[in-house]
């Protein structure tokens, strides 16, 4: 075990995996940095500091700094994978899926199926997402709900350094395309990370709090908000399950349904706007598969149906938070038919 930041866990995992498997290639904008400048390569190592040291160690054939061409980055990762490699592609901001969605959605997600199961496409697309840094409407979006809707893509969202290592290793070694969502406000959080081989299976949620009164299902940055809400409620004798989904596709349906069977109250917290969101997805799941257990209307705590605003006060009002989750739990428990 070593204590490190989530950012460091990701950097180290990429280093370890690329060391282990010479077939891995990584590409993205400024992932080396300094190409064609007086400062020279490695002047930056990724604007989020996640790819430092790779170029020096693995060289230009495997660590590829690209022009600003997201479609070609994602497409090239997919093409390299079809051609027998394992690829890691970086999108600097999740919002840029708009620029390259075809390669994610019509290409890598569908190859295996369209080609009759005879190809695989091992690509891990690393994506920095989410609000909380006042980066405004085009650099703050959650995006994962949209990607979760696409058959053929797996969607992963680590919330701790250890999970980042375990899930990223599984993503890179797997044979399917994976969207690996890294919340920009979580890069700096610290935690113990297991040494050596450490893989976490997909579709296994993490129960971070256990309780009997309500089930809070969430992911990403809102896991901490949910824990905060649960801890506050615990002081009033209200105990909650807090479920960190870890992967939204595949989804750990069993964990969610078991929890709701036990508590009868579901609160979903999701950083997306509400329509066709992960929140609604889980609400739909429970309303169809654990209906009998439900004792109150399902509570969905989401961002509003608006773009992400810039000003501090506005972004704060936009983002779902602990207080909103806590209120939703109380509303649910107070419900009388």
């Amino acid at each position: 075990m070593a204590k490190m930041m989530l950012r460091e866990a990701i950097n180290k995992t990429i280093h370890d995996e690329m060391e282990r498997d010479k077939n891995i290639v990584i590409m993205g904008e400024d992932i080396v940095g300094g190409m064609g400048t007086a400062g020279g390569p490695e002047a930056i190592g990724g604007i989020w500091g996640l790819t430092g040291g790779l170029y020096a160690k693995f060289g230009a054939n495997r660590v590829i700094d690209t022009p600003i061409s997201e479609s070609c980055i994602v497409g090239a990762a997919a093409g390299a994978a079809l051609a027998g490699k394992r690829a890691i592609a970086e999108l600097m901001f999740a919002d840029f899926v708009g620029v390259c969605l075809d390669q994610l959605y019509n290409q890598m997600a569908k190859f295996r199926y369209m080609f009759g199961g005879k190809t695989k496409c091992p690509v891990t697309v690393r994506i920095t997402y989410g609000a909380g840094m006042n980066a405004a409407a085009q650099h703050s979006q959650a995006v994962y709900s949209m990607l979760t809707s696409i058959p053929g893509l797996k969607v992963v969202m680590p919330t701790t350094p250890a999970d980042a290592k375990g899930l990223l290793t599984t993503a890179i070694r797997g044979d399917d395309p994976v969207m690996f969502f890294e919340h920009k406000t979580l890069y700096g959080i610290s935690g113990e990370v297991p040494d050596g081989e450490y893989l976490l299976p997909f579709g296994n949620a993490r129960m971070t709090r256990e309780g009997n009164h309500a089930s809070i299902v969430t992911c990403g940055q809102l896991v901490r908000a949910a824990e905060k809400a649960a801890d506050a409620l615990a002081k009033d004798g209200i105990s909650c399950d807090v479920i960190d989904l870890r992967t939204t596709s595949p989804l750990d349906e069993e964990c969610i349904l078991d929890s709701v069977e036990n508590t009868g109250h579901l609160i979903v917290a999701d950083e997306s706007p509400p329509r066709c969101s992960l929140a609604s997805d889980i609400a739909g799941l429970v309303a169809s598969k654990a209906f009998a257990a439900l004792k109150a209307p399902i509570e969905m705590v989401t961002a509003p149906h608006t773009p992400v605003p810039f000003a501090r006060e506005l972004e704060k009002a936009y983002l779902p938070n602990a207080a909103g989750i806590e209120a939703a739990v109380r509303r649910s428990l107070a419900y009388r038919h």
Partner: protein
Amino acid sequence: MPLSKDQLRRAYRQMKTIREFEERLHLEIATGDIAGFTHLYCGQEAVAVGVCEHLANDDFIVSTHRGHGHCIAKGCDVVGMMKEIYGRRDGLCKGKGGSMHIADVNVGMLGANGIVGAGAPLAVGAGVAARMDGAGKVSIAFSGDGACNQGTTFEAMNMAVVLKLPVIFVYENNHYSEHTGADYAVGSKDMTKRAAGFGMLARKADGCDFFAVYDLMTEVLQHCRSGAGPASVELDTERFFGHFEGDPQRYRGPGELERLRETRDCLKNFRATAKARKLIDLAELDAIDAQVMQLIESAVTQARAAPVPQAADVFEDVYVTY
């Protein structure tokens, strides 16, 4: 280096196979037994074959919506293809892909593609893989004159130059994208000059002349395999059918199709050159024709008789592991 007799026979056989595959499909589609959208390659055979006869099994190609010719030229199984187009369970893609999505990574054919312009970035990635593998492997992106106006194609050209990758962009200029003329949609009216502007070797040749294509590719492949970076090749060619089967082709001039069949047929041209240069006995080509006709007949017969997929197959092949 002149082509050996064996090479000539092989090239001719490949072109003829594509031709007859497509001519027959045209008839089969008219029966209503084949579903979906089909884009026939007929008329462009010298391009696919003139390029692919240079390639090894482990070189890569990326294809388009008009992919049958590339598939056959790169070595996909013709019977498996016919079954796929017929939507059969043991088709090359189990009936899941159909005409627009035929692939066989085992022969370096990384897929036909229904999204115009999506192939070029994939070919850049295959070029990255080719360079990692070393040994002068290359990656080819087939694109149409229409596809070359899509942003992805331009990005791919720039990225291939930046990374000095062994990627060749083969532009099949058949003068139309759907119902629109290439001279309208390619603003510069010269895609080769435009490609050259990206800083790569850019050449063109007559795409209805197998020998012209083959010779140009000898030179361009040498450049790429030696590590000198990407190249663009524009090949002037013709499509003998509509954009898709069912296209009324009102954009054609009077007598255009007849004239093309008469003067721009790469198979006729091949025979004429073979005869003029005394490269091979035409009777040998006749014998190949007969074999090809048999192969296609057999492919259709097998495809028609093959079992259709089952409803449960829908759920298979989405992920490798769940």
